[in-house]
């Protein structure tokens, strides 16, 4: 065990995989000598050289499209998109090409590749650096989407992603990159893609969350336990595609109440899909409406209002009060 931040855990997973498997190569903007704008690939250029850590021209579609071609011909590319908000430039290559290759070739061609991208708000970035766009990709069959919130999960899930036979979008919470350190095994391990993590057991209410707000939700749940003897179950979804239906359904069947928290805009968000799943699978266990605490239905705002715009403790408390009262 060693203490690592999320960005160190990501670096460690990349390094290990590159040492083990020479089919793995990294491509992206400023990932070479610079080690990435967040230093996620720090030291890898020095260790593995320019053949395996490749600085690309500024062309997101080409980064993803080339990765599809590399993967289909037997390599294991890990592409970095500098900020998730820039991925619109590569929408076709993500949604129509990488995701569909297995299907559109009747299973004869595959794209085992990882696309890494930082995202998430609260750090006063310029426009289109903070947007949470997971819902757009949830609508692309063939793709997996991972959104870890801890260093341990980041390392184990990235290792799993790099060994997965299908394309994976691996979203890295920018605000949490260096927010804390935790114990992470130095040796190799993986975490199963598609498994949520019950962070906190509870009886009265289930909160389903992923990515940056996980920590706020967990702290809020602890406050409710201490101050109101309310027992809140907190589930870190970790994987947005596929969604771990079993875990969330079992939890809501037990607690009878559900709140979903995400940074992405509310309408058409992954929260809507989860609410639909819970209505299909656990409606008769519910004793209150399912609520969502999410970003508002606006473009991601400017720095002066972002903390109020993002799901926060105040809005979560309101939602918790509402579902607990509504019996």
């Amino acid at each position, binding site marked *: 065990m060693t203490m690592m931040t999320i960005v160190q855990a990501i670096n460690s997973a990349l390094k290990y995989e590159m040492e083990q498997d020479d089919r793995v190569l990294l491509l992206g903007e400023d990932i070479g000598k610079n080690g990435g704008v967040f230093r996620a690939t720090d030291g890898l250029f020095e260790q593995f050289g320019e053949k395996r850590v490749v600085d690309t021209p500024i062309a997101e579609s080409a980064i993803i499209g*080339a990765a599809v071609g590399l993967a289909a*011909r037997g390599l294991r590319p890990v592409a970095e998109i500098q900020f998730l908000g820039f991925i619109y430039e590569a929408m076709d290559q993500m949604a129509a090409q990488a995701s569909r290759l297995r299907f559109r070739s009747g299973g004869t061609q595959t794209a085992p590749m990882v696309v890494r991208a930082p995202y998430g708000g609260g750090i006063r970035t310029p426009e289109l650096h903070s947007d949470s766009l997971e819902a757009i990709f949830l609508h692309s069959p063939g793709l997996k989407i991972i959104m870890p919130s801890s260093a341990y999960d980041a390392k184990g899930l990235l290792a799993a992603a790099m060994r997965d036979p299908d394309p994976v979008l691996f979203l890295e919470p920018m605000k949490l990159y260096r927010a804390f350190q935790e114990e992470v095994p130095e040796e190799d391990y993986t975490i199963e893609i598609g498994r949520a993590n019950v962070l906190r057991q509870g009886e009265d209410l289930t909160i389903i969350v992923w990515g940056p707000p996980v920590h706020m939700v967990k702290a809020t749940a602890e406050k409710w336990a201490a101050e109101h003897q309310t027992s809140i179950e907190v589930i870190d979804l970790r994987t947005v595609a596929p969604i771990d239906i079993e875990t969330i359904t079992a939890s809501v069947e037990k607690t009878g109440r559900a709140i979903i928290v995400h940074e992405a805009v509310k309408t058409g968000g992954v929260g809507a899909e989860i609410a639909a799943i819970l209505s299909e699978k656990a409606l008769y266990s519910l004793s209150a409406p399912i609520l969502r605490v999410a970003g508002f239905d606006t473009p991601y705002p400017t720095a002066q209002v972002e903390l109020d715009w993002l799901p926060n403790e105040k809005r979560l408390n309101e939602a918790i009060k509402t579902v607990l009262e509504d019996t």
Partner: protein
Amino acid sequence: MWMDQSQLDFQKVTYIDEQGKALKEEMPVEEAELVSMYEWMVRARVFDQRAVKLQRQGRIGTYAPLQGQEAAQIGSAFAMRENDWVYPSYREIGVSMVRGVPMSQFLLYAMGHLKGLAQEQANVFPVQIIIGAQFLHAVGGAWASQYKGEESVSVAYIGDGGTSEGDFHEALNFAGVYKLPIIFFVQNNQWAISVPVSKQTASRTIAQKALAYGITGVRVDGNDAVAVYTVMKEAIAKAQAGEPVLIEAETFRQGPHTTADDPTKYRMADDEKTWTAKDPLVRLKTYLTEQRIWDEEKDRALYEQADAEVSEAFQAASSAPASELKDVFEHVYETKTAQLSEQQAQVEEASRQ
């Protein structure tokens, strides 16, 4: 120093002119190879015309004919080596046939069979519908060859319309930066559905676009199979040595964009006539006949043979078992997600009721 495109002069490479006369003393292609190319061009033509008829009869779905582009397609495919890879659009039926994709496969695809998607034969990437997307896959493919030290060139096909796409330009740029073993083969067939090439680009030639990316460009008579073959051979050698090549093959789409399109709405019959006179099959046949390598009798036999092959392919495709909804879940992921398994079970359950 100021510079403009009037200073760029991409001469068109031609070996056999429109009257079927050799323009150069030396013929760079062996007789047997010439005959074989002609045979494939006829096969492609016969298949193509039948496919259009089958669509009109409602036996297959939408089809994108290649008529008029046989020299560009067969000539370029003939120059490839076994390990080379093709990244086609949706019109490269001729190329794919030469590379080993059976005729029945194209029919299964046009009939909407799930199996029609499974084109496992012969180093040909799946048919690409999105204009230009395959260019970047070819970049990745060529990059993989370079990475692994394979002797293999990746060949990406596109039309004149596709050269306006961002992916086209990103691909040429990447190829130049990484010196990839890649050939970008543009069939300039003059029309992108209804838009003529003059409204697609202000460049005098498409070949000259190579220069902006630091790669090599060449312009070839795309209705001259010998010229295409020869240029392609040279391009493969260059690409293999780390010099990416953009080939502009000037040709003409004699038919509609697809069977769903009606070119009488946007182009003149005269234009079509002019180009029909430059037909690639006629040109090569005239040359072969004048060389006494070919005659009418051989030609008739060839057309009959090709007809029989197409009929056989159609029989095979027609007798393939119909695709079923329950099979649609099979190739989304390597292992089905819980959601997919649940949906598949629902479909199976519903079909039992």
